[in-house]
């Protein structure tokens, strides 16, 4: 090597290597190495064979691509036998590259390893795992594996691996199914309690309270069940784990312990970063139960306090709208995850997500309005208002079933529930439960204080439970909406 003068036209890489040190000039755009034969050097008597030139190598040499010592990342983990494994490479009695640049073949064999290495030491570890020791390094004209790895690191340009297939988001069908189930599970107990209350108007007696407790328990139980089943919409509780750490009980060195003759002690197929069976957070947590109870209280309180079939119909509509809230929250999370995968910076992510919350709120309010209108229409068709029939048909009659305060209260309650569900799906269960509890507690307090003298608020005095609901949930929404605007713009909420 020493006799090969770079000035006389030998392989540039070989010449630079002969001088020792890294070869920064070999980094080419596009990550390709020069494949064509280099300019022939007069000293070496023609072009230095590089790459797999079949005529130049003994027949026993394995083809570079199918060599069994391929990079470990390309090693078949399943049963598929590597092509090269059938005919193991012959011994090291002969230099691996017959030509002037033996490293080139090694480079081709470990291309993926070298391209994605972050450090020469990573290549050294990979080479050692492929069976290269100090002896083999000497055949590549290096003192040890480390300097060989340094040469490979310098000669192969870094290239990012092919992007993995994006994690499949939640499917449209799955989201709609969950929303329908939630709507049913929430509307049914509301309807049952509404029926009880309409049949026995007046202050809720023992039967009414019992029915309310049963309906609330049912609501809470279904919420817990829905939120405790795993799915792509659930935020991971465990976060990300480093591989090779104790989460992955298997460490390479332990293969060689006598007591571990029998394979790996841990579940090998379950990698630590996949959703393994030991991932915490699959159990129903107390906060989820709290959410269920608070949501039930928010939904059912107007029924307990209020009177009249119109109020009952609106509560049933609000229960059904919980399904819409579930759908919206899952869609929101889906959108957030898509942007999380593609956004470059946190600021970029924030600006991408800024318009999504108003859209979600508008969507939900529209669905809520349609559902409420439909419930009132059914009510009007089934049990028209006593008195003379009004002019204007069904539409007019429905519009007169509920006044503006009732509509506003319905909207406020729906918004409160939507924001709570959104926060719950984005990992802020504590805030969701607190907001719901505050809203329902305020409503209950106002309902209890309704009849007291000295509380002469006209809204409360004239509109009864609807006014209490509006006054109770309104402030909660006013606090929660900006909070959600800030929190839901954080990328950390969509993990």
């Amino acid at each position, binding site marked *: 090597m020493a006799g090969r003068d770079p000035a006389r036209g030998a392989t540039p890489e070989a010449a630079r290597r002969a001088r020792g040190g890294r070869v920064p000039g070999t980094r080419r755009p596009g990550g390709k190495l020069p494949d064509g034969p280099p300019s022939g050097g007069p000293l070496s008597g023609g072009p230095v064979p590089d790459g797999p030139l079949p005529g130049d190598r003994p027949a026993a040499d394995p083809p570079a691509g199918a060599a069994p010592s391929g990079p470990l990342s390309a090693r078949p983990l399943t049963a*598929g036998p*590597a092509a090269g494994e059938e005919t*193991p490479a012959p011994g*090291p009695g002969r230099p691996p590259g017959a030509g002037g640049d033996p490293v080139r073949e090694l480079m081709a064999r470990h291309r993926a390893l070298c391209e994605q290495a972050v450090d020469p030491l990573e290549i050294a570890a990979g080479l050692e795992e492929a069976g290269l020791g100090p002896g083999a390094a000497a055949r590549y004209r290096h003192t040890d594996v480390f300097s060989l790895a340094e040469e490979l690191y310098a000669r192969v340009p870094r290239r990012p691996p092919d992007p993995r297939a994006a994690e499949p988001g939640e499917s449209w069908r799955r989201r709609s199914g969950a929303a329908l189930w939630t709507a049913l599970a929430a509307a049914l107990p509301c309807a049952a309690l509404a029926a009880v209350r309409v049949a026995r108007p007046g202050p809720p007696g023992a039967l009414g309270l019992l029915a309310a407790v049963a309906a609330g328990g049912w609501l809470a139980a279904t919420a817990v069940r829905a939120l405790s089943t795993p799915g792509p919409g659930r935020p991971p509780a465990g976060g990300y784990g480093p591989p090779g750490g*104790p989460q992955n009980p298997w460490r390479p060195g332990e293969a060689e312990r006598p007591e571990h003759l029998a394979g790996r*002690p841990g579940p090998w197929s379950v990698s630590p970063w996949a959703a393994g069976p030991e991932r915490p957070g699959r159990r129903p947590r107390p906060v989820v139960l709290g959410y269920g109870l608070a949501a039930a209280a928010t939904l059912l309180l107007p029924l307990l306090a209020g009177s009249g079939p119109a109020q009952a119909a609106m509560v049933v509509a609000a229960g059904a709208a919980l399904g819409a809230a579930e759908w919206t929250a899952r869609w929101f999370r889906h959108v957030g995850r898509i942007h999380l995968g593609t956004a470059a910076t946190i600021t970029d992510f924030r600006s991408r997500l800024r318009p999504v919350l108003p859209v979600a709120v508008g969507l939900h309010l529209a669905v809520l309005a349609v559902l409420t209108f439909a419930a009132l229409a059914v009510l009007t068709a089934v049990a028209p208002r006593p008195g003379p029939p009004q002019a204007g048909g069904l539409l007019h009659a429905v519009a007169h079933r509920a006044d503006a305060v009732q509509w506003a209260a319905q909207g406020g309650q729906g918004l409160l529930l939507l924001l709570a569900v959104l926060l719950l799906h984005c990992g802020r269960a504590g805030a969701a439960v607190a907001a719901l509890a505050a809203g329902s507690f305020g409503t209950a307090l106002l309902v209890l204080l309704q009849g007291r003298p000295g509380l002469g608020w006209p809204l409360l005095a004239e509109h009864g439970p609807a006014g209490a609901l509006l006054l109770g949930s309104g402030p909660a929404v006013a606090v929660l909406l900006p909070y959600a605007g800030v929190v839901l713009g954080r990328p950390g909420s969509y993990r």
Partner: protein
Amino acid sequence: MRVALLTEGARPYAQRGGPGWSARLAEGLREHEFELYLLAGPAGRGGAADGPAGVQGRFDAVHELPMWGVRPAGRGPAALRRRQYLRAYEQLVRALVMPRERGSFGPGLYRLAELARADGALPAFLASGRAQRVLERAWRSPGADTAAGQPMVRDVLVAADLLEQCLRPLSAPWYGTGPGGLGAADVCHVIGTGPAALPALAAKQLHGVPFVVTEHGLHLREQYAGYREAPYRWPVRALLLTFFRLLTEETYRQAALLTPGSSHDQQWQRRVGADPARTRVVHEGTPAVARPAAGPEPTAPTVVWAGPLEPGRDPALMLHAFARIHAELPAARLLVHGEEAVPGHLAHCEALAGRLGLTGAVEFAGRPASAAEAWRSGTVVVFTALVQRAPLLLADAMLSGRAVVSTDTGVAREVVGPTGLLVPPRDPQALAGACLALLGDEERRSRLGLAGRLRAQERFAVEPVVTAFRDIYLELVSNWPAYPDGRSGTSGQRLRPFARPAEYWMAAGPAGAPAGVGGAVAEERRTPAGAGADAEPEAAAEAKPEALAEVV
């Protein structure tokens, strides 16, 4: 002497450094107090059958810190301190991403350790949006190493999460000089580097406690292998691997002594920056040295291969070589012990044996009742792994007194030495030749087997390990000033045995104290507990019995 053993281990599984290695050490050095500081897996993972409960009796105390998994609950720092946190974290992160600023890793780390020790708000801080923004800003600033891709938002999240988990030991409640605190220990002994070395680094910085590092299988090398198969993007891998590399370099720099388990590991340590003058190879002891040699050989010439079935152990090479042995010696049999470690590899090996026409001569025996059982069933023991990192399996085979043939990779050369046959990896012809040579020569077989047994008994006994560490601890403590910074010693604390070396009281200063510390010590000598320099030995003599009584 109080020795703090720091190690990392998942609860249901063995600790790093081998099951019971530290327990055996504590057993052998009964004259010292051992406290185990364990970085455990997330709480609630499996039973504690093999964990601290099983070894509790051998340690004076076991302190556990749940690592990995869900972040521990806690509040972030207050607004004023947050700026200090941010500055320290930025320093650390810039060291990770800027190739030119590698030197600021240590200062950033120690600053974070100091802050975390004071208020324990580090985990919450690292998970906060502010810390993420600092990370992103540093990562995307010009000069950062993003050779194979710019970091994206998700990379920032993942990396912040991983860094939070890795740095969790800094907020462990282990610091301070009170009971159970690392500051009260005389020596820290880190088994395996990585996060387990963080408390030792912090204790050295905060309290001046020296530490010794034992590594059986390099943590850094395992990270390189593990992250290659991890589902993280290149920038995350680069950041985390740089973190581990810088952490390991800092550990090697600060360690008073390194004791790798083999020269193979020692080479890696030197490559990462370990000082050869402070490195001493201490082989891992195994209780199997007391086992009697395997009895008479089986009647049929049998080749035994043992190990988990996976491509890295290369059982295919054994099968190819055995095809040649079988052609020469039709009576020969091959016993393959071990379960499959990669799903489907057993079927692959069986199919290969069938294709080579060895169906009758090869037996896949599965997991043996014990390792000794496996060795006893063969005439010659063969290892064909592409790389052999840990010496114990080889040593165990040598202890049986059977002749060993191994591929010349990793530690094989230093373990087997002249007492077995080494063949190049991936060379069935050479392997078959070596096996045939041994199978046909009973005298050579028994000679090599006996030599191997003696060699393994000499190198892998438990007793030399215990003796080595007895010396190492004493040497470390005698050369180390107890309070190099002069802060902790002057507050009129009770004196503890070995809290100051003998030289401290007898001579002008510690003999082998590092330069630059001697001055501080000499200065400190004049002041402790308000006593004059002349009255000091007496004060020590008075204090010592009292302190001893406290220990007893």
